[in-house]
């Protein structure tokens, strides 16, 4: 019975982390109709930069914020240099480019920092909280993650539904040509979308790093779990990212707890397959509307 509770709680917590990665993917998808496979690696890279800053004595929260800002810049640079030139070309080209970016960043991080062998510190205590007289598998840090995820999700929701910038972004994503005819500077909007996603990715990296071994590949699994979460919930939907994250987290936790951790990715694969067969648009997406 305790295994069940532990597994469920754990699923909840890792689900929150998957949701953050998923939110970054949703951001880019809503802004540019593209999937950024380098989302995890970009976050990994900025987290390593934060690591360097910390080692030079920079305060934790300052490094945290700086990493997010660098992520913002990184996203913008990637869009301008790598994605913009591919406009109008076949759909697979940006996919291949972002995959190239994924491993190029991993290689670069490896060259610069190597396998550090050290860990990345967490923002808050990672030991379990005490509820009543029992220690629960839910720490201060997990509370922080929860708060961040909700804040991020709300932020993305508000951005797209209630702001003029979000309106421009949606128009630029659904109908770029028409948006241009209406005076929307589509190019700048796309860059901004990637920049925001870069910042979200940096945030994800900072939250994931303390929970796993700190090497250039540490975001790989989180990328695929985040991807699964986003697809399950609906690539269009920030709420979907959260719910998809939860579902994926629970699924992975149960597979890991009862079948062994080496089967976790295949568990994600199974979940992804089921989702794509049953409801390819995701749980929360609105039906695709045609251009009229």
């Amino acid at each position: 019975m305790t295994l069940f509770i532990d597994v469920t709680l754990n699923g909840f917590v890792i689900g929150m982390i998957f949701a953050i990665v998923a939110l970054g993917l949703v951001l880019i998808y809503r802004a540019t109709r593209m999937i950024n496979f380098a989302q995890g690696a970009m976050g990994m890279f900025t987290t390593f930069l934060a690591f360097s800053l910390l080692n030079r004595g920079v305060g934790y929260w300052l490094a945290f914020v700086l990493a997010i800002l660098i992520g913002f810049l990184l996203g913008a640079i990637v869009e301008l240099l790598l994605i913009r030139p591919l406009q109008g070309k076949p759909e697979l080209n940006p996919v291949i480019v972002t995959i190239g970016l994924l491993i190029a960043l991993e290689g670069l991080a490896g060259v610069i920092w190597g396998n550090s062998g050290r860990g990345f510190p967490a923002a808050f205590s990672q030991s379990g909280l005490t509820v009543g007289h029992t220690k629960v598998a839910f720490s201060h840090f997990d509370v922080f993650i929860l708060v961040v995820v909700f804040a991020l999700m709300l932020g993305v929701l508000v951005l797209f539904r209630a702001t003029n910038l979000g309106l421009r972004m949606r128009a630029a994503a659904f109908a770029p040509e028409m948006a241009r005819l209406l005076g929307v500077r589509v190019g700048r909007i796309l860059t901004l979308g990637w920049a925001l996603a870069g910042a979200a990715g940096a945030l994800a990296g900072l939250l994931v790093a303390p929970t796993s071994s700190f090497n250039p590949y540490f975001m790989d699994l989180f990328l695929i779990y985040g991807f699964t979460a986003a697809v399950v919930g609906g690539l269009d939907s920030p709420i979907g990212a959260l719910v998809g994250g939860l579902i994926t987290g629970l699924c992975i936790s149960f597979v890991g707890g009862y079948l062994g951790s080496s089967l976790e990715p295949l568990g994600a694969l199974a979940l992804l397959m089921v989702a794509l067969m049953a409801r390819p648009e995701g749980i929360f997406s609105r039906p695709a509307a045609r251009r009229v």
Partner: protein
Amino acid sequence: MSSPPTPPEAAVVPTWARWVRLPRQPMLRHLVFAAAAAGGFYLLTSNLSAYNDFQVGEIALYAVALAGLSVLTGMNGQISLGHGALMAVGAYTFALLATHTSINFVLELAIAVGLTAVIGAVIGVPANRLKGPYLAGMTLILALGLPLLGDKYQSVFGGDQGLSTIPPTAPGTINPEEWLTWIEIIGAIVTLVLLANLLRSRFGRSFRAVRDDEIAASLAGIHVARTKVVAFAVSAGCAGLAGAFLALSTGVVTPGEFPLTLSIGILAGMVLGGAGSLMGVWWGAIVLVYLPEWSTSFSGTFNLGAGVSAYLAIIVFGLVLIVVMLAVPNGVQGGLRWLLRWAMLRLRRSPPAVAELQSEGHSVS
């Protein structure tokens, strides 16, 4: 349309063939090529050291893997980031057969190919409903997840130590290393000839038709889903053969040999050579085999740390993918083809080439 960079649709006779007098019939042409390649390799291997022989064999096996992916992506429009995992399937199948049975190694190779092809078909069924990026995501999970099975079932797969195989004995007085290399070379040539024939056949045309426009293809009577599954199976079979060759030539199979970087490296090799180009696979294979060496000596010259060279190689893969996609989407072969047409134009050898270049939007002075 979600097709990858498409190679210019080959004329009935490829451009360069106008220069060289070759039989017009595809099958004959392929056989001539095969014979020439075999001859070339023979010269190569009889003049190289054992270690270089081994590398030539490696180039051959990666050529097989790249050819499989090239057919899948370049000719059929489906991307796969999981071919490293498929190589693992072929490798482990071969190793298991070699360890537990004593059947002829050719049969073992065939079974490895067949099993991997079947798994490819199994993956191909859900895959054929997925658009590019989703397929990439799914195969990415496969690439990360499949090799972990080795961890799970340690008694069968030998865990981290993996399995070892005893290479088949060379007949007669042939040098054992050369023998292994020759198995791989022959395997590669045979595979490429078969693939080339497949691509020229009606099946190959249906591959391309599905790549270019699924709706039009199905209206023309092509069974789209079945075509895509077959393409996946063929491609997986090639990866399985390459993996089996890896097991054959190195004598050992461990999970560590099949990380995500292998799958992405295969993608990079294919993109470099040119998606859809069977000739281009050799460029990619050479880079895949020699890159680790080059980066080791590079990091040695600059006195970088010990583990750095592996990471350097990875950076190069990433850069290849990025730069080729941005600058030369049709890879080296595509670039060479363009150069050749430009040269023919300059020499004013052939009006059709001028027309071809004009239709591609180049201005003619």
